[in-house]
C-alpha cells in the first residue's frame, strides 16, 4: 500500500469496446474501454498497437491476457486466463500472459495493480467473464459475416466460429484477417445481452490446467526482481539502524569502508513521508563489496522515541489501555451484552495474547532503480506496481521539490518470490531512487537476510479480553476487547489523516475510525444474541514495529482467539464443541449472508468491497451489474464445511491413542464481506512430561464457491495450512530496545519438511461466486491445535505461538 487517497482516479468508464483493425492483411482484436479505443483508432493504419485492458488477439490466433495481478505463487495469471478463455472460447494452447508496465497512462487503462486479501478471483471473475463473452459475441457476428451466414445460427468453440446446421467454420485468426470488428457494449443495456455461461457449460473453469508460470520455475529461467541487470548499475546494501523505526542518522564515518576496493559511497537516505528512517546504504561495484562496506560503516544514531520499547512493555500498555472503556471503539454491537451477562447463570472471562510474526519471504526485499532521459524506472517484484509508482512519485516530488505531474515514473513488474502481504511497502524503492540521485548510476538495492528481518513489517502483537455469558447451556452474551497496533495510520488512512478510505465507523454512535484490517475475524458467524467487539488502537505499536498486513491480516490472530474461546465456552457449558458450534452456525439473522441479488448499496459489504476492491473501477458508481456476494448461504455453508471436516476426521467416532486429541476450528476469512468458508480439525499428540506436541494430521474442508483450478486451490489450501502450523510451532518475532531480535533463519524458523503433518483436503465446489483460497486455511490451524491440546491433556493455552513451555505450564495448572 502507498498513498491511498485517490484510488479511483481515472477509472470512470464502463462501456466495453470490442474492435479490431485490418492492417496489411493482419488484424488485432482488443477488448477494452472507450478511452483506449481512441488510442486504437490513432494506431490504426500502422502495425503498432496499444494493448487493451483484458486481452489482445492476433491474427495467428494467439491471445495474450494482460494480467495486472502479481504472480507470487498463486498462479493467478493462469486462473484469470482460464476464466476469460472459457467465455471467449479460445483454444487454451493459444493463450499467453503478459504484465503491463505500470505508468500514469496505463493506470488509466488497466486500473489499480494491487494483489491483496485473496481477492483477485473474487473481484475479477464477473467482469473478465463478461469481457471474454463480449469478445466471443463479437467474433461470432464477424465470423458469420465471413461465412455469409446468419449469426444466430452460429456458435464458437476452440477458436472457431461454426454454423450449427452445416458445420461450416472459420477460425478466429481468419476472421481477424478478413473483417473489421467494431462493436460497443454500452452500459447498462448491452450488459444484459452478455449471456454468461452456466456452470455446466464451462470447459476450462473447474479444470486443473497446467499453470503457465510453472515450467520456468524449474529451470532457472523465471525472472524475479532480484534477477534484473541494467547497464552501468551498482549495488546497494543497507546498514541496519538500531531501532526498527524513527532513528536518525547523526553521523557516518566511512573511513574503513573507503579502504575496500570497489566501495563507491555511503549514502544517507533522505527521509520523507516517514520512510527509511535512519537508513544508510553502502554503494559498491559488486554486492558482496557493498555488504562488506555496510558492515564497517560507523553510523551514529539518535535512536528516537521507540528505543526502549520491547514486546513485554507493549503488552503491558495494551492491558492498561483496555481498562479505559470510554476510549474504545465498538465495531460489533448486537443486543445488550451487559444485560446478557447479568442474566447469565455462568460467566467466563479470559485473556489471550499473540506475538508478532513477519513475512520472511524467501526472496529478500530488493529493487533496481534507473533514471534515464528524465524517466524513473523501477524494476521490482511487488504486490502493487501502482502503489509503488504513486509512492515513489510522492517521495520524489517532496525530496526533489517537483510537481508530481512533472515526474515520469514507471514500474516494471517481475515474479514475486513470496508476498504474503510483505511486498506492499516501498521503502526500498525510495532508498534506491535516492541512491540513484546520489551516484548518478542505476542502483540495485538488495537486503541481506539480516537487514530484511531488521526492517520487517510485522504483524502487531495483540491483547484480547473475552467474556461469555452462559445460560441453559447456551452462549447468550459475548464480549471481545482487542488492543493492537492498527496499520491504517501508516498508510495515511483514517479521519486523522484526512482519508476515511478502508476505515469503518464505529457503531457506538461515536463515529470513530475502525480499522477493519486490524480487527476483522472477531465478527464471527455464530448466532449470539448479545455480541460486542470493542477495539483500541495502540498507535505507538503501529509505528514502532511498522505494523502491516500478513497473510489473512487480523484473522490470523482473531480466529485463534475466537475459536479457542468458543471451545472454552462449549466445555464450560457442558456441550460437545462440534455440536455447540453447529447449533450456533444456523444462518439466522445477520449470519444468513446477503441474498443472491448482489450487495445492495448501504450494506457494510457495499462499503468495504467497493472501497477496497478498487480494481472494480465502476463499483463506486454503483453501476457494475451486481454479482453474487460471496456471503450467500452464510453460516450454513460454514456449518456444512464443519460437518464434512468433522466427519472425515472421525470426530466423536474414533478411538484416539493416549495424550492425543482432536480440535476444531472454523473461519470465514478473509473479511466478513468476502468470506471463504473453511473448517479444520487438528489431531495432536502431546508429551505431558515436556509439553512438546506434534500435529499428526489436519483435516480441512473448504467451500470457496466456484473452483477455477482445483489443483491450484489444493496447493493453496495445503500451503496456507502449513503457514498456520508454522506460525504456532516455531515462528516468533520479538522486539527489544526498539529493534527486532531475530536476524536470520536460525532464530526465526519457518516450518520445514520434517515438521509437516498429514493434510486431508476436501474442496466443496459449490455453485456460488468464487472467493479467495490463498489465505483462509492458515487461520484455523492455531485454534484447532490449541483445542486439540486441551482435548488431549486438559491444558488450555491462550497465547500464540504455542510454545511447549506454555503447554507444560498449562498442564501443571490443569492438575493443580
Amino acid at each position, binding site marked *: 500500500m502507498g498513498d491511498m487517497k485517490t484510488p479511483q482516479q481515472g477509472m470512470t468508464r464502463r462501456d466495453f469496446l470490442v474492435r479490431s483493425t485490418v492492417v496489411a492483411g493482419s488484424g488485432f482484436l482488443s477488448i477494452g474501454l472507450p478511452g483506449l479505443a481512441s488510442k486504437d483508432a490513432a494506431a490504426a493504419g500502422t502495425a503498432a498497437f496499444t494493448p487493451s485492458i483484458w486481452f489482445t488477439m492476433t491474427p495467428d490466433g494467439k491471445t495474450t491476457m494482460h494480467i495486472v495481478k502479481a504472480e*507470487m*505463487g*498463486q*498462479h493467478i495469471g493462469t486462473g484469470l486466463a482460464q476464466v476469460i478463455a472459457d467465455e471467449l472460447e479460445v483454444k487454451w494452447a493459444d493463450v499467453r500472459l503478459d504484465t503491463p508496465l505500470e505508468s500514469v497512462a496505463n493506470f488509466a487503462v488497466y486500473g489499480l495493480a494491487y494483489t491483496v486479501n485473496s481477492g483477485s478471483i473474487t473481484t475479477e471473475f464477473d467482469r473478465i467473464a463478461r469481457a471474454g463473452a463480449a469478445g466471443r459475441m463479437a467474433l461470432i457476428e464477424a465470423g458469420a459475416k465471413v461465412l455469409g451466414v446468419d449469426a444466430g445460427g452460429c456458435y464458437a468453440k476452440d477458436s472457431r466460429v461454426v454454423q450449427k446446421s452445416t458445420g461450416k467454420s472459420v477460425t478466429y485468426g481468419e476472421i481477424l484477417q478478413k473483417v473489421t470488428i467494431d462493436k460497443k457494449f454500452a452500459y447498462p443495456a448491452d450488459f444484459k445481452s452478455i449471456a454468461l455461461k452456466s456452470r455446466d457449460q464451462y470447459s476450462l473453469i473447474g479444470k486443473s490446467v*497446467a*499453470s503457465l*508460470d*510453472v*515450467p*520456468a*520455475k*524449474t*529451470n*532457472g*529461467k*523465471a*525472472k*524475479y526482481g*532480484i*534477477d534484473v*541487470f541494467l547497464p552501468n548499475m551498482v*549495488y546497494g546494501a543497507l546498514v541496519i539502524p538500531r531501532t526498527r523505526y524513527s532513528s536518525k542518522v547523526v553521523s557516518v564515518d566511512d573511513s574503513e569502508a573507503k579502504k575496500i*576496493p*570497489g566501495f563507491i559511497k555511503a549514502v544517507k537516505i533522505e527521509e520523507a513521508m516517514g520512510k527509511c528512517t535512519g537508513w544508510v546504504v553502502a554503494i559498491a561495484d*559488486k*554486492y*558482496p*563489496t557493498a555488504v562488506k562496506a555496510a558492515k564497517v560503516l560507523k553510523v551514529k544514531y539518535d535512536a528516537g522515541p521507540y528505543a526502549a520499547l520491547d514486546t513485554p512493555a507493549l503488552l503491558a500498555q495494551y492491558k492498561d489501555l483496555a481498562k479505559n472503556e470510554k476510549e474504545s471503539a465498538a465495531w460489533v454491537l448486537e443486543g445488550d451484552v451487559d444485560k446478557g451477562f447479568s442474566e447469565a447463570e455462568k460467566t467466563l472471562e479470559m485473556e489471550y495474547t499473540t506475538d508478532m510474526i513477519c513475512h*520472511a*519471504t*524467501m*526472496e*529478500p526485499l530488493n529493487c533496481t532503480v534507473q533514471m534515464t532521459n528524465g524517466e524513473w524506472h523501477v524494476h521490482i517484484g511487488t504486490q502493487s506496481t501502482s502503489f509503488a509508482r504513486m509512492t515513489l512519485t510522492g517521495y520524489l516530488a517532496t525530496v526533489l521539490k517537483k510537481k508530481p505531474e512533472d515526474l515520469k515514473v514507471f514500474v516494471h513488474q517481475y*515474479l*514475486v*518470490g*513470496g508476498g*504474503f502481504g510483505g511486498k506492499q511497502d516501498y521503502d526500498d524503492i525510495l532508498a534506491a531512487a535516492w541512491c540513484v540521485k546520489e551516484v548518478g548510476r542505476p542502483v540495485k538495492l*538488495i537486503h*541481506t*537476510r*539480516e537487514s530484511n528481518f531488521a526492517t520487517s513489517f510485522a504483524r502487531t502483537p495483540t491483547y484480547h479480553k473475552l467474556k461469555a455469558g452462559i445460560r441453559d447451556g447456551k452462549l447468550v452474551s459475548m464480549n471481545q476487547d482487542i488492543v493492537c497496533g492498527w496499520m491504517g495510520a501508516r498508510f495515511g488512512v483514517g479521519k486523522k489523516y484526512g482519508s476515511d478510505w478502508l476505515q469503518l465507523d464505529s457503531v457506538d454512535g461515536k463515529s470513530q475510525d475502525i480499522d477493519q484490517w486490524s480487527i476483522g475475524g472477531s465478527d464471527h458467524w455464530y448466532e449470539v444474541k448479545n455480541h460486542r467487539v470493542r477495539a483500541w488502537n495502540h498507535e505507538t505499536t503501529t509505528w514502532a514495529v511498522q505494523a502491516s498486513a500478513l497473510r489473512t491480516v487480523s484473522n490470523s490472530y482473531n480466529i485463534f482467539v475466537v475459536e479457542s474461546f468458543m471451545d472454552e465456552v462449549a466445555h464450560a457449558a457442558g456441550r460437545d464443541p462440534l455440536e455447540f458450534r453447529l447449533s450456533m452456525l444456523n444462518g439466522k439473522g445477520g449470519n444468513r449472508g446477503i441474498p443472491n441479488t448482489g450487495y445492495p448499496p448501504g450494506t457494510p459489504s457495499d462499503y468495504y468491497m467497493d472501497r477496497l476492491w478498487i480494481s472494480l473501477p465502476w463499483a463506486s458508481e454503483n453501476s457494475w451489474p451486481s454479482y453474487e456476494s460471496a456471503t450467500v448461504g452464510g453460516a450454513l455453508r460454514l456449518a456444512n464445511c464443519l460437518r464434512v471436516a468433522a466427519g472425515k476426521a472421525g470426530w466423536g467416532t474414533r478411538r484416539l491413542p493416549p495424550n492425543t486429541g482432536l480440535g476444531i476450528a472454523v473461519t470465514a476469512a478473509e473479511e466478513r464481506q468476502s468470506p471463504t468458508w473453511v473448517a479444520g480439525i487438528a489431531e495432536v499428540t502431546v508429551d505431558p512430561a515436556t509439553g512438546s506436541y506434534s500435529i499428526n494430521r489436519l483435516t480441512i474442508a473448504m467451500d470457496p464457491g466456484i473452483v477455477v483450478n482445483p*489443483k491450484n486451490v489444493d*496447493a*493453496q489450501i*495445503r*500451503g496456507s495450512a*502449513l*503457514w498456520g502450523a*508454522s506460525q504456532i510451532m516455531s515462528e516468533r518475532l520479538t522486539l527489544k530496545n526498539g529493534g527486532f531480535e531475530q536476524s*536470520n*533463519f*536460525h532464530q526465526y524458523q*519457518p*516450518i*520445514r*519438511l*520434517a515438521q*509437516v503433518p498429514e*493434510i486431508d483436503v476436501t474442496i466443496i465446489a459449490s455453485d456460488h461466486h468464487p472467493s479467495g483460497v490463498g489465505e483462509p486455511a492458515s487461520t484455523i490451524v492455531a485454534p484447532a491445535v490449541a483445542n486439540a491440546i486441551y482435548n488431549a491433556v486438559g491444558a488450555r493455552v491462550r497465547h500464540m505461538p504455542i510454545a511447549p513451555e506454555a503447554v507444560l505450564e498449562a498442564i501443571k495448572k490443569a492438575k493443580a
Partner: protein
Amino acid sequence: MPQLSINGQSYFTDSPPDSPLLWVIREDLRLTGTKFGCGGGYCGSCTVHINGQPVRSCMVKLGDVDSNAVITTIEGLDPSDAHPVQRAWIEHEVPQCGYCQSGQIMQAAALLAVNPNPTTDEIVQHMNGNLCRCATYSRMVTAIHRAAQLAKEA
C-alpha cells in the same frame, strides 16, 4: 583472474577471492537461477552442485573453489531442462512462488544421483535443510518419488 568451470563452460570473474560463490554465479556470470535466500546456509535457495555434491553456494568463498571443480547450477542440470526431477516438478506442479525451487531441485537431484530409490524418510532427511515459505513440501516428496520412477524409465 579466477577461472570457474560451470555447466561445462569456462568463466572468468574479477570478483575478490572472499566473495561468496553465490554472488559470482548470480551477478558476475548472470546465472540467476541460483537464488540468494539467507547468506548463512540456513535455507538452501542457493544450492548448486560442486563435483556432484549439493553445496550452499552462499557459504563457499570464491578463493576456496578448486580450479578443477565441476560446478553445476540449475541452468546446467540437464541440457533440455528435462532432468527427471524437473519433469516430476512440472507434472506435480510443485512450485508456487518458485523462488526456492532451483535449490530444492538441485538438492533433490543430488539425492537421486546417489540413492535412486529413496524412502520418504530418506527424502525428508535429505531435504530438511531447504526452506520453502510457500510450504510446497508434500508435493516435493511426491515429485521426488515420481522422479525416481522417471529416471528408471529413461
